[in-house]
């Protein structure tokens, strides 16, 4: 039964991911949006919400909604907004589109997550661009980078829980295994725990498998109110059962507990409440594996594991495609590629593929309810979506 006032996702679009030197910001966004609109029987969006983190700094381009609308052939026909919440921008853009439809102001919205990282090369990406998501005055100006900061949290996590580094080895192993069957993924080669163990340790405790690789890429969704779902749609419409978004303290030093992602926890609780379901109802979780530390702390924050025990889920096999709680089903940020402000939209596209039964070799059997979560920096903002059929 389709409920009139609920929001449904009827169009999906995504580009390939990676270092796409010859594809521009506008081309990426337009390709994803056009694909989503075609998938949605060309139902014209009344508004577009663009999720993006870096364009103003990396490509010297703000005013993205006008850019994307024009380049997608929608100039003069749509409202448009850019939503920025660092790496959670895409998730926050979905939240805004959901609000716009539920408020009754519009019936059809498009969300475009787009990130163009390779307009800038070199150390400046880490020091000048990614650091815009942490506290500029109190953290970045002291020389802390986001990765450096997160690696300190990882060291604390291992110390407090008396764990060897290898305890987290299975997170990237699972991600890489799942990306093998994702034709758009940045890294389609499986790795084993030895690869993780042997990788040289960089930035204060991380190795290259701990940190998701920055990627260019765009993903798009078309969302509609229930009564506007086209009758002869060629595929299933996926219900956006709930969307929640919450912020936390920006700087780490203002938090009570460094190893608990409070925003991640609150947004999951709110999403479950709005969708009127319980955590065990979730069949799979497109989590935010910005780093292995993000992966483990998001599992703990959501309540899938007790504090200090999230890592056990990865070693027990629970997180594989055949496990009780598959994660990163198309490779996650680690292996699919991490398109920062677009990543939250990619997660929802992938969750919809699972629910529509279009995930190919990675299809989860009996996937009925999926959850996605998009985290900014060290979870200073969290957007959670629950999707169902």
């Amino acid at each position, binding site marked *: 039964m389709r409920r009139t006032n609920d929001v449904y996702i009827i169009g999906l679009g995504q580009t390939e991911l990676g*270092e796409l*030197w*010859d594809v521009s910001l506008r081309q990426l966004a337009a390709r994803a949006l056009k694909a989503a609109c075609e998938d949605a029987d060309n139902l014209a969006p009344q508004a577009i919400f663009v999720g993006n983190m870096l364009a103003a700094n990396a490509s010297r381009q703000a005013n993205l909604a006008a850019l994307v609308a024009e380049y997608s052939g929608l100039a003069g026909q749509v409202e448009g907004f850019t939503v920025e919440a660092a790496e959670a921008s895409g998730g926050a853009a979905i939240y805004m589109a959901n609000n716009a439809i539920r408020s009754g102001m519009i019936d059809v919205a498009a969300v475009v997550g787009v990130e163009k990282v*390779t307009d800038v*090369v*070199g150390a400046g990406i880490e020091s000048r661009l990614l650091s815009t998501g942490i506290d500029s005055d109190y953290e970045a100006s002291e020389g802390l980078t986001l990765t450096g900061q997160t690696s300190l949290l990882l060291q604390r996590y291992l110390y407090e829980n008396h764990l060897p580094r290898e305890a987290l080895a299975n997170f990237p192993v699972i991600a890489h295994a799942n990306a093998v069957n994702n034709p758009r993924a940045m890294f389609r080669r499986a790795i084993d725990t030895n690869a993780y163990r042997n990788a*040289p340790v960089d930035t204060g405790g991380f190795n290259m498998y701990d940190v998701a690789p920055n990627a260019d890429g765009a993903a798009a969704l078309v969302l509609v109110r229930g009564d506007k779902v086209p009758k002869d749609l060629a595929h299933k419409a996926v219900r956006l059962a709930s969307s929640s978004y919450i912020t936390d303290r920006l700087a780490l030093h203002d938090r009570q507990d460094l190893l608990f992602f409070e925003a991640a926890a609150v947004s999951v609780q709110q999403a479950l409440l709005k969708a009127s379901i319980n955590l065990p109802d979730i069949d799979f979780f497109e989590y935010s594996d910005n780093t292995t530390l993000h992966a483990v702390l998001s599992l703990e924050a959501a309540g899938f594991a007790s504090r200090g025990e999230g890592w056990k889920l990865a070693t027990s096999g629970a997180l594989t495609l055949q496990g009780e709680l598959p994660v990163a089903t198309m490779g996650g940020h680690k292996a699919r590629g991490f398109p920062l402000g677009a990543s939250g939209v990619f997660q929802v596209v992938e969750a919809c593929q699972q629910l529509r039964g279009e995930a190919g070799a990675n299809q989860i059997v009996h996937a009925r309810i999926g959850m996605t979560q998009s985290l900014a920096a060290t979870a200073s903002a969290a957007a959670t979506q629950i999707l169902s059929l």
Partner: protein
Amino acid sequence: MKQEQIVPKPEKSKLLIPKIKVGIVGYGSYVPRYRLPAKEIGRIWGNEGGFPVREKAVAGLDEDVITMSIEAARNALKRSDISAEELRAVWVGSESHPYAVKPSGTVVAEAIGAPNDIQAGDWEFACKAGTEAMVAAMGLVGSGMGNYAMAIGMDTAQGKPGDALEYTAASGGAAFIIGSQESALVSIEASYSYVSDTPDFWRREYQVYPEHGQRFTGEPAYFEHVSGATQTIFAETGLKAADFAFAVFHQPNTKFPQRIGKMLGFTPEQIAPGLLAPVIGNTYSGAAMIGLTAILDIAREGDLILMTSYGSGAGSDSFVLKVRKPLALRRENALSTEDYINRRTEIDYATYLRYRGEIRMR
């Protein structure tokens, strides 16, 4: 009787086909004696392994592109049967010409005894300035404007301390005298150039060190252009990798030329003799050309050799060369490239800084 066409007719071909057939009538190389091991650079900057080369050649205190070009040019003359007075051009390709304004070519020409009635400009196209000069020399000789032209590729490459390029930026290069094919040691059977506007590596005026586009320097830059040039010359000549005895590519590190060689169908054995980057580093404008000299030191009559250079910004010059009988008789007339490589004095990082003028007194 109809003349058999070795290469397609000019109007139908992408190849650069001179009116008069040309070849290399003399060649010479030069590598300065000092070597800085990559692990010594790693010691300073806290890197333990995964270096792009084993060590690099470093010019001494009294050496620069001009002095090194003179050494290579003299070796080239020794292997030729001409005197410097017969040269009609002395062209030096480099990205480290000692003067911003004032040619290197005039100094080199005068030092080796070339007459006043010559062309003597300098060439700049990142790492393919030397092979660009070779193509120009082919044009000058091939059109009949002069009988002999010298093309030199030589560098004392700049690498910013602490940058990835510091491990490879090296000194050295080679000189070739282009003349008509009858007297050549090696005939130039075909040549083709492939360029595009690709900003992968650059140094603006008043900058001391070049900048580079990290991984952008790989796929869209080096691999695109080297394969673009080589595959076109394959297509236009009907040759394939297996037809060649040797192949040499621009070598900014050890891996790139090995990988492009494999991509184009060459075996490690075809690549190895010209692959000098592991032991002398990246000599920039000299890199492909000095690799060719190492091959000419051992090649036999009839051997086909492929050389494809690469210059950032970006482009590649590709050449098909065929060894002629006189090569074996002349190559002993000067020091071999291997002799120069074996003439080795290891230095530490501090000495390197002094020799390269990196220690600023004020």
